[in-house]
């Protein structure tokens, strides 16, 4: 039986790890390759690298990081941030990533999902979606709206419909990030993840809100996700990945316990 995955997410700016996008002022918190190696050694099931570099020159530095990571860790990893074209996808995959995560680039141009899936296979294309809860309207019947730019821009798109569209276009997986839960450490938005998981038949990664192993267990049971994305709870040493895995396994989740 498939194990539930724990996926640490690393934000990279100018080749260094930084605090997440939502924090004001970027603080250098380490070397992405060393950190990836540490999480690999500790049993991470997959890793996500998110490029928050603004400049064009920074892109090259980021791809160098991806290449170094690919020669250091031997588990799958994906790359997101700034993927707006098939060429961006190719660059990231050639550098050694297994998967690319498209988010606002796909909202603006959904065809890059189908183009990417046709070139690189569905398994290589992850749709990342940032979702905010809003009042129910005829345009947003689920009350979950797609937002971009860290939640600053509302797209007037229903998250459930967008998930179905992305699946039909060929996305192999969906990472559902709740902007409302993100950073709260109060737990994932379980209703959102389970609603989307029930609407599609591709794997769902829960993102935003992880504060403890119980939250992660809830995400992969009640939330019907197959993977839980985490960031600050491991970056700042509150938990280690082996602790998270042991506790989730003790609660009854099927985890990969040998690595």
């Amino acid at each position, binding site marked *: *039986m498939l194990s539930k995955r724990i996926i640490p997410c690393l934000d990279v700016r100018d080749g260094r790890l930084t605090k997440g996008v939502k924090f004001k002022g970027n603080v250098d918190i380490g070397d992405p390759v060393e950190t990836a190696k540490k999480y690999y050694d500790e049993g991470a099931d997959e890793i996500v690298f998110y490029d928050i570099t603004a400049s064009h020159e920074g892109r090259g530095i980021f791809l160098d990081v991806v290449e170094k990571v690919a020669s250091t860790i031997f588990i799958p990893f994906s790359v997101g941030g700034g993927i707006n074209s098939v060429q961006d996808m190719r660059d990231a995959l050639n550098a050694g990533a297994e998967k690319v995560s498209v988010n606002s680039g796909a909202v603006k141009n959904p065809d890059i999902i189908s183009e990417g899936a046709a070139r690189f296979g569905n398994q290589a294309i992850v749709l990342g979606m940032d979702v905010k809860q809003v009042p129910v309207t005829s345009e947003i019947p689920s009350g979950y709206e797609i937002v971009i730019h860290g939640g600053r821009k509302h797209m007037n798109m229903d998250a459930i419909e967008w998930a179905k569209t992305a699946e039909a276009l060929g996305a192999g997986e969906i990472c559902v990030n709740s902007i409302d839960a993100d950073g709260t450490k109060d737990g994932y938005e379980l209703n959102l993840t389970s609603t989307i998981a029930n609407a599609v038949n591709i794997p769902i990664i829960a993102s935003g809100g992880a504060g403890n192993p119980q939250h992660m267990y809830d995400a992969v049971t009640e939330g019907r996700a197959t993977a839980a994305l985490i960031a600050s709870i491991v970056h700042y040493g509150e938990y280690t990945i082996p602790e998270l895995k042991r506790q989730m396994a003790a609660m009854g989740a099927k985890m990969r316990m040998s690595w």
Partner: protein
Amino acid sequence: MLAILEYKAGNQTSVKRALDHLGIPNKITANPDEVLAAHGIIFPGVGAAGQAMDELVASGLEAVLRDAIEQGKPLLGICVGCQIMLDYSQEGNTKTLGIIPGQCNLFNDEWKDMNGDPIRVPHMGWNKITQRKPCELLKGISDDDEFYFVHSYFPEPDPEYVIATTQYGYEFCSIHGGPGLWAVQFHPEKSGRAGLRLIKNFYNYCEEAANAK
């Protein structure tokens, strides 16, 4: 030296990185002489079976592969490489290499997992393997180890070729073949230490076979 078969439907670079990390001499090549001079061949594959077959035939490597097997050269097929070693794949109704008898079928998303939920397709993530017969590839690998899978079709060889199975709504064959001619459905190059160990075991087998000649 191991040859990593170079054709357009492979994930050769990932395999190469794993071999480099292990200090195993290797080369990504489509050159028949180099392939036949290697002590063993890794045959990766991603994407659709039909496309992989087309690329293999177009590059002339299908014939090279058959020559190598004829000569008893050890071979390790990975993912789509594993699937197209069988006779036929449901994916695109494709006639495949027929090196090992059997066929490749699509997961049925009405099959249920152990919690009674319908399985999601593709089968993507980490899963265990249950060894069904002794195999040099699995030396030092325990039943607790897991491997990384990503696929929508699964191999179904004749039962005598089944080496290990995996549970995903259905107990499917995750390693098939026989001594020196193996195929793994998962990605050993992305399966952490257990996967690296399997690759190292393959290399050791190749070197022993070459030294014995």
